[in-house]
């Protein structure tokens, strides 16, 4: 929230100059824009679509001159309008601010700005002159007033931040346009290097990421989003950074004292990412993993046909050891060691990345006690991925299996069951197909492979005989009225019960954190959802020196969110161990500012662009693949990668704030 004096953003114009400060209404669409950091008011905000001024003392034209200076610094230099145009424009604005003669110079300035806007090749140049053009369109008299009063020559403190919609949407803030740029130039090493700045698991992410970036991709408004994930997989597969040991202790620039030891609990995505960043910061890191293999939920929860473990995941985790970290396997917290013994062993800080590995039960009559053939989705995937594929253990799974749930875990269960040779695989979901939370590719894949779907159906009783599952009683559901959020509830249809005979029932309806790793007296608290209680900004738990991240904090989420939290916690641990206080990070503040102004975020594509549809990824034929765990998606060719990379519109945007100090 903030009070806007003047502002112009897309088609919106705000003019409160005639009002006294207390008469101005709070502008709620912006989110919290009062302070940049504690005690430092935001006086103006500029972005690629306009500007807002919150303080009458600000010189808008001076702020725009500084903003353009930042854009000129960021220009990649590949096109003249952006490379030279922005510099000339900055000089002209500086001359205007110094020497005046507003009326004569403004027409020329406008012409140049319009040229840069319309003829730059990418989003940076196209958007850089927008605040200036908006000001010229809406409040041209302000410019002349500021120059006459001399306000335009006063230096104004502030901060700038360069980003793009895909970067902002990515939890790890991977610089997507940059790695695509390097790919276009044939610089694959540099390209994968951009990703590796954020996390070590580039090839893993290029296979299983849920792609928040592609959902934000502005190319969608022209034809289809850029295949960002497929390009990441392409460069990661091209470059053998893990097998060729690109990472070594020589990369650590600032080694810290060896007694600054950090324990990371869990070698999953969050733990590995935290360990990676801590090692690169120079800390000594030891990772404790309960299983005999690394990867956490990525290893035991993601099927082999989507992510090959041996060639991809385990190689990427080995980067931790290349950097000098240690991974102790088969060490379970609460059984083999505790938080207190870690502290006694000299660890100065602990990161808890224990995940959410406990499956939720159906909550129906008949499931009490131990019943053969009734197992949660996560445990079923754990068996297949860990015991079966990894260790070669066999199991009799029967002829018919029923999986309950509509998310990605449910999809992984049904598709894996087919590959295990189960003859008939059923999926039961209480709502309709459109409401399934699983990825569309996954649902379609399961359909093509022959899974039998039962929509608007809900389990009501588990049927067993002599301690073995024999069937599942189901009830048909109907859609009710939409609730406040617009989602329609479901109601059972009385008398519609029927029984599906089956040997195996697998509920895949969610996971929770297994609390057995810690005792209440150890001082780490859980919230009312059973997740680890942490500070949102620092990921600090309720015990000093102990931090947490990943599914144990967020509940079951995605690989990329867990890796982002691992990095965030590593920064906090660095602050805690070396600086003794939480340092202010301007880029993080910009990220929260931008996330808070969602209402103003939908953006139009103004430049005409030729339609060019995204690359199609070849897949194994459904008949062959449904009995095998071989990777379904095939790699794309070099030509296809170049063509796909060319589709990126480089939607870079400069954002800046004018602040009090």
């Amino acid at each position, binding site marked *: 929230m903030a009070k806007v004096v003047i502002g112009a953003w897309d088609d919106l114009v705000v003019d409160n100059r005639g009002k006294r400060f207390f008469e101005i209404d709070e502008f709620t669409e912006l989110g919290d824009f009062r302070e940049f950091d504690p005690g430092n008011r935001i006086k103006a905000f500029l972005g690629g679509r306009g500007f807002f001024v919150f303080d009458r003392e600000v010189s808008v034209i001076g702020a725009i001159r500084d903003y353009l200076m930042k854009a000129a610094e960021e220009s990649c230099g590949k096109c003249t309008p952006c490379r030279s145009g922005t510099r000339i424009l900055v000089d002209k604005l500086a001359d205007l601010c110094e020497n005046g003669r507003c009326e004569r110079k403004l027409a020329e300035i406008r012409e140049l700005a319009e040229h840069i806007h319309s003829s730059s090749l990418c989003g940076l140049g196209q958007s850089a002159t927008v605040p200036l053009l908006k000001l010229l369109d809406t409040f041209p008299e302000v410019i002349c007033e500021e120059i006459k009063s001399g306000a335009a020559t006063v230096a104004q403190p502030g901060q700038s931040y360069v980003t793009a919609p895909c970067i902002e949407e990515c939890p790890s803030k991977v610089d997507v346009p940059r790695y695509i740029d390097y790919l276009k130039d044939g610089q694959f090493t540099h390209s994968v290097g951009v990703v590796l700045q954020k996390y070590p698991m580039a090839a893993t992410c290029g296979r299983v990421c849920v792609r928040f970036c592609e959902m934000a991709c502005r190319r969608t408004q022209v034809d289809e989003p850029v295949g960002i994930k497929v390009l990441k997989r392409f460069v990661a597969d091209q470059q053998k950074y893990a097998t060729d040991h690109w990472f070594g202790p020589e990369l650590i620039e600032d080694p810290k004292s060896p007694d600054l030891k950090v324990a990371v609990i869990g070698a999953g995505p969050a733990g590995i990412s935290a360990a990676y960043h801590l090692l690169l910061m120079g800390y000594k890191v030891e990772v404790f993993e309960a299983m005999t293999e690394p990867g956490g939920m990525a290893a035991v929860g993601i099927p082999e046909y989507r992510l090959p473990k041996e060639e991809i995941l385990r190689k990427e985790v080995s980067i931790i050891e290349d950097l000098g970290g240690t991974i102790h396997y*088969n060490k379970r917290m609460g059984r083999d060691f505790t938080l207190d013994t870690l502290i006694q062993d000299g660890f100065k800080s602990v990161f808890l990345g224990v995940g959410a590995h406990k499956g939720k039960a159906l909550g129906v009559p008949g499931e009490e006690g*131990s019943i*053969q053939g009734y197992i949660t989705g996560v445990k079923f995937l754990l068996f297949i991925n860990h015991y079966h594929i990894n260790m070669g253990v066999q199991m009799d799974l029967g002829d018919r299996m029923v999986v309950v749930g509509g998310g990605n875990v449910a999809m992984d269960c049904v598709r894996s069951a087919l590959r295990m040779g189960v003859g008939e695989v059923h999926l039961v979901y209480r709502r309709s197909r459109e409401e399934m939370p699983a990825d569309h590719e996954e649902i379609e894949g399961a359909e093509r492979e022959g899974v039998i779907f039962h929509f608007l159906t809900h389990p009501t009783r588990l049927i067993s005989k002599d301690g073995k599952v024999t069937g599942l009683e189901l009830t048909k559901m109907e859609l009710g009225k939409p609730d406040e959020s617009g989602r329609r509830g479901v109601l059972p249809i009385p008398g519609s019960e029927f029984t599906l005979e089956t040997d195996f029932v697998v509920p895949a309806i969610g996971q929770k954190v297994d609390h057995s790793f810690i005792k209440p007296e150890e001082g780490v608290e859980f919230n009312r959802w059973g997740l680890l209680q942490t500070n949102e900004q620092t990921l600090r738990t309720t015990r000093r020196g102990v931090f947490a991240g990943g599914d144990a904090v967020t509940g079951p989420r995605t690989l990329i969110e867990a890796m982002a939290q691992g990095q965030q916690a590593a920064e906090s641990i660095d602050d805690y161990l070396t600086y003794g206080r939480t340092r202010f990070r301007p880029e993080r503040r910009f990220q929260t500012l931008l996330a808070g102004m969602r209402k103003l975020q939908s953006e139009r594509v103004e430049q005409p662009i030729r339609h060019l549809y995204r690359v199609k990824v070849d897949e194994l034929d459904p008949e062959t693949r449904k009995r095998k765990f071989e990777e379904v998606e095939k790699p794309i060719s070099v030509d296809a990668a170049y063509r796909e990379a060319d589709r990126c519109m480089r939607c870079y945007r400069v954002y800046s704030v004018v602040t009090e100090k």
Partner: protein
Amino acid sequence: MDLVVCVGEKCHLNGSELVLKSFMDIISSEQLTNAVKLKACFCIGACTENDLVNVRLGDLTFPADPTDPARSFAEHVRPVLTKTEG
């Protein structure tokens, strides 16, 4: 004969994989692949509050110690095998 190791919720936490790994090694090094077939299952229905892993061999169910699976194999599996051989 099937030698079935439980990998259900509790047994997995107690160390099913250590038991499976050790049994696998014994079976292959002593060439017992014709005599026993090693398998896994979800819950044998013999859950207790101990730190052991449940194993079933034919009609016999016994708990194996994950810290020393070889001893459990010697105690419970070998006598049955010798009997069937003899």
